[in-house]
């Protein structure tokens, strides 16, 4: 057996060179501007950032998006122009054209390197033009892909109203603790999760982010917060340290097992014993049987690029798959503690070896490992998908998991729909492979 498959006693964490492919964190504007309906996102960067956004977001750009580039030119870089005046000019133009309730400035690599003081300028400009300006540094120097949302939400957490200021809610302190969820989800999924909690008698007081900037939730010592996505560690830290909220550390509601654990954890904090969850979970599982029969016993390799990897791997192991490797850009072991514990428990219960968790992976080495292990499915970015397919390695684009609806009981099917699609494709095309192409032949000429 390959030495890559040697069984381990517990979860092991490795760290490679960080030479991997992922999206730039500024891509978060694409889903956040849609989620926060009255916002405008201004990405302060160069042509490189603009080119990435326009290509990565494809057709969305043609729908008059509420985001734009403040494209830095040579005169900005060499400080011949005054940053403040330039940003003021652009923001006034945005105010005039779109009149948003909030402008979010996305700082990029360039603003970091030339040390543009966005946090310093924003409050001044805010009072001058009368629109709140939130600053998030979502740059490729520090973050990967979905972590962009984390930086925006962490900045937005500072803008949430606090309990003390809500004079009409003086009695709030005597009331029972409030629950605020954080993480951007499509409205449909948010409603589904809300209904799940309502069923247990738990009311959600608010979401970070809300659909409108004006509806940001009230935060304070009385607020319990819980994340719905694994990449929100900065937001969690900000909520705890700056807003004195109490964090519920739970696995994430991805897959029926995760959703159940998530609800159970929240219920426990509110002193409620959850009702009917076990039946609900098993009912969902039985509804998935047609897909489960496809994935059972198959092996998966996560190359890693969006931080959803741990939760997805945990769900797929529960589905009966074997995970060889979980590549992940960044692993916050405290924020993901409950998720990691569930992963460990799942491995033990399903009697499968622990996967290796590789932080900051090196794509070149990973491809060597994929060649050796020949997994049944590789979950990878688009840069590697076609070349791997040409070498008879079945792949699924990881980015789709970020944009598909995968949270809660209802959407478990969606995840398996994505995971099984390449497998079902293989089934459908098997006659082509068998009758014309030799079984093992690849699509690459040597």
């Amino acid at each position: 057996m390959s030495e890559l498959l040697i069984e381990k006693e517990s979860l092991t964490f490795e760290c490679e060179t960080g030479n991997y492919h992922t999206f730039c964190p500024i891509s978060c504007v694409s889903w956040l501007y849609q989620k926060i309906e009255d916002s405008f996102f201004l990405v302060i960067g160069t042509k490189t950032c603009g080119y990435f956004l326009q290509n990565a977001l494809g057709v969305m750009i043609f729908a008059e998006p509420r985001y734009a580039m403040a494209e830095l030119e040579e005169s900005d870089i060499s400080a011949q122009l005054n940053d403040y005046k330039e940003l003021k000019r652009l923001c006034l133009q945005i105010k005039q054209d779109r009149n948003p309730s909030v402008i979010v400035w996305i700082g990029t690599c360039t603003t970091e390197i030339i040390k543009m003081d966005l946090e310093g300028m924003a409050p001044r400009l805010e009072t001058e033009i009368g629109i709140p300006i939130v600053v998030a540094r979502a740059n490729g120097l520090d973050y990967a892909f979905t972590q962009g949302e984390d930086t925006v939400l962490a900045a937005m957490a500072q803008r949430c109203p606090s309990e003390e200021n809500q004079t009409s809610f003086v009695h709030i302190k005597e009331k029972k603790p409030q629950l605020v969820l954080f993480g951007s989800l499509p409205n449909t999924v948010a409603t589904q999760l809300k209904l799940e909690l309502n069923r247990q008698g738990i009311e959600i007081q608010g979401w970070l982010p809300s659909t409108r900037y004006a509806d940001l939730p009230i935060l304070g010592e009385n607020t319990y917060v819980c994340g719905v996505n694994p990449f929100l560690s900065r937001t969690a830290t900000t909520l705890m340290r700056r807003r004195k909220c109490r964090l519920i550390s739970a696995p994430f509601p991805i897959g029926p097992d995760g959703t159940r654990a998530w609800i159970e954890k929240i219920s426990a904090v509110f002193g409620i014993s959850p009702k009917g969850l076990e039946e609900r979970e098993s009912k969902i599982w039985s509804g998935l049987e047609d897909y489960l029969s496809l994935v059972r016993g198959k092996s998966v390799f996560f190359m890693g690029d969006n931080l959803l990897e741990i939760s997805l791997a945990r769900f797929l192991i529960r589905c009966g798959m074997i995970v060889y490797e979980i590549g992940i850009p960044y692993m916050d072991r405290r924020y993901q503690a409950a998720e990691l514990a569930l992963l460990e428990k799942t491995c033990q219960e399903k009697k499968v070896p622990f996967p290796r968790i590789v932080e900051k992976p090196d794509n070149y080495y990973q491809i060597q490992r994929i060649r050796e292990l020949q997994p049944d499915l590789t979950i990878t970015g688009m840069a590697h998908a076609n070349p791997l397919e040409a070498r008879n390695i079945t792949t699924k684009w990881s980015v789709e998991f970020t944009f598909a609806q995968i949270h809660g009981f209802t959407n478990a099917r969606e995840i398996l729909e994505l995971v099984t699609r390449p497998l079902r494709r293989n089934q459908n095309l098997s006659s082509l492979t068998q009758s014309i192409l030799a079984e093992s032949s690849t699509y690459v000429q040597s």
Partner: protein
Amino acid sequence: MKLAYWMYAGPAHIGTLRVASSFKNVHAIMHAPLGDDYFNVMRSMLERERDFTPVTASIVDRHVLARGSQEKVVENITRKDKEDNPDLILLTPTCTSSILQEDLQNFVNRASLESKSDVLLADVNHYRVNEFQAADRTLEQIVRHFLEKNKKQNEVCQKTEKPSANILGMFTLGFHNQHDCRELKRLLNDLGVTVNEIIPEGGKVTSLKNLPKAWFNIVPYREIGLMTAMYLEKEYEMPFISTPPMGILNTAQFIREMETILNNLLKTKEKDFRPYIDQQTRFVSQAAWFSRSIDCQNLTGKRAVVFGDATHAACMTKILTCEMGVRVACAGTYCKHDADWFREQVLGFCDEILITEDHTQVGDMIARLEPAAIFGTQMERHVGKRLDTPCGVISAPVHIQNFPLGYRPFLGYEGTNQIADLVYNSFTLGMEDHLLEIFNGHDTKEVITKSLSTETSLSWSPDALQELARIPGFVRGKVKRNVEKYARQNQVNQINVEIMFAAKESVNA
């Protein structure tokens, strides 16, 4: 600073990477932060490339910001040298490295001591040049590097026995470049000219030393390749043709220029390509006959707008006016750096000329002129959709649809056929549209209900209706039917959000 939503030409490093990944066995290392390797996605997706794109990043992160890249870049170069044994490693600066002002040349010098492959620093400034200029510059830089290296080794370069040509400027992610390349080869073959080297697409840097063996050079697109052709002309006295053989007239001129060059070199008048041009124009290409045919009469006086890169926009303008009798209301390009050439080319063939990189200006122009058809980039296609004007895509920037599997050249005689189809189809679709409007659209008797019984006792709560509205239109009907079916099965009369989700959870909803 400027407010920008969209751009026609990409940043400089994209041009450099396109040169690097077009050559065989050349690896590019970008000095860039995480996420800047989006080029790999584009190449793998748009070109449906089977091989891994030979581009990696030497990541610029916080540590690099604090202490400089130090050994990192050199290590990455030598590592890649060992892993892949490329013939050339091209260190590619990005906007980030432009402002970090690290001495990348120094890294290159150090790395080239240790590695077997040649190492070069792409000499491009992010803030001064765009994708095309950078590609043009990088191609010249690589050619110059290998030819000068060869000169030092004193190898004598003999011209080929038979007339031969180099094709300069075929690229990965280029607009229909692969098809154009095949068509050009066919054209040269017909005329008894052999193809010496095609660079960069599919070429090897080690065979660049053979470039001077050719009798002359061909630069099919103005944007990329001219600098290389000029360098070769200066150093090796190689003449070049920069007329794009696009359209019947241009192709004829291209062939005549080739005739002149060959006769000059042979010092005779033995080459006479006129019969070939005549034969091709009248019988192989259908385009000339098409312009005479009744169909094309209907195009007379129709107004069109053309926008794209300099080569394609200029050629299309000429084709539309001189070969099809269409009136070009405005011809424009986003290649600002080549504006003079463009103006000179289209002067007299159109009513207005527009040189801009701002897509809103192009959109406004189209809205103002109300043409019957647009010939532009993917951006203009979307403007056309919004204004209900048909659009044929003739130039980059492109989508995956512009990398067709079938044979679709724009150059040469087969190219003229393809262009004629494109133009004609755009216009007829437009006319069909007008007729439909006059006769009140397609004959569609509205389907009132898709359920078998018209009587439905089900009612939808407002929040459920709202949720239903969020479902994309093309599946909404199906979802609605499934939810109602589920509700009936479970004897529920009032459908609320919970019922909707429960229905979804029940298998296959």
